[in-house]
């Protein structure tokens, strides 16, 4: 094990908020710290097991979980006798993940913003697929995308765009009903006239 881990580890949002076990996410961070220069590392299960004080089997499970979800790639190199000579753990870089931005030399705050932007883009794209008036969809997006760290729709415990849009359209109808613009005094005078007729 000749590699030295970087001082910082990076765990992008898609990994952080995935269904992985917390330690598996931490392992991902460790891998990113090891593979800063090359984008991959050769650390063994024993190395990770020793580092975290767990068994090799546990590390193996975490790695396979990370691999299953597509966050890392594991490549095994064998010699002519089909013996394993090297195991390469690579990080799967996605354009919209903070790790990609980090490599480009951005700081964390910008990374957060870029994540938010990508989440917003996804949200906007999904909303725009629905067949409602564009103006209404824009209003819907503006309302639900409000917020810096977390957008309003992210703060909801449940959020299904389709159902929210149905409700939005329903409310829109109610709100756009013509309101009674007559002043209180005018309506009172009207009532007085009616009363006079009733007498």
């Amino acid at each position, binding site marked *: 094990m000749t590699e030295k881990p970087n001082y910082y580890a990076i765990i992008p949002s898609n990994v952080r908020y995935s269904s992985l076990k917390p330690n598996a996410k931490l392992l991902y961070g460790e891998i990113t710290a090891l593979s800063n220069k090359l984008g991959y590392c050769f650390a063994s299960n024993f190395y990770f097991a020793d580092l975290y004080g767990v068994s090799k089997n546990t590390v193996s499970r975490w790695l396979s979980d990370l691999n299953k979800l597509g966050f890392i790639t594991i490549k095994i190199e064998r010699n002519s006798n089909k013996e394993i000579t090297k195991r390469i753990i690579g990080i799967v870089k996605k354009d919209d993940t903070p790790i990609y931005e980090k490599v480009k030399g951005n700081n964390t705050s910008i990374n957060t913003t870029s994540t938010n932007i990508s989440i917003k883009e996804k949200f906007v794209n999904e909303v725009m697929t629905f067949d409602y008036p564009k103006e209404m969809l824009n209003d819907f997006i503006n309302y639900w995308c409000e917020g810096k760290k977390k957008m309003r729709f992210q703060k909801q415990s449940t959020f299904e765009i389709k159902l929210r849009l149905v409700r939005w359209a329903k409310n829109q109808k109610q709100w756009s009903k013509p309101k009674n613009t007559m002043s*209180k*005094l005018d*309506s*009172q005078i009207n*009532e*007085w006239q*009616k*009363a*006079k*007729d*009733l*007498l």
Partner: protein
Amino acid sequence: MIKLLKQEDLKELTEKVLDLIAKTSVEIGHKTDAKTMVSLAKIFSNDLIKEKRFAKMTFNQVQDAFHQGVRFGKDEPFLNIRTFYKWTYAHKKVIDDARYQVEMLNQKNVPFYQEPLKLLK
């Protein structure tokens, strides 16, 4: 010509009371519908003619009672017969007091004093 309430014609008085109620409703800031106003006007005008305690009052004094009641009444103003009675009765006391001050104590310029109406020959 000023008339005592007991001399008023019921229909005419009801019309005048209705106008007064409508005006009061605006002053209070309530939204009162036509049917309620008509009912209140009919009941109150009937009361004004029949009630002996208001017999010697005139309609302009009732108007004063409402004016004072809306502005200076102790309780929250409402458009109901009970409130109308409260205002009118309170004002009747003021009128009686004013009359006492003028006629017994010979004071001048007493607010709400009204010369007694001359009887028609």
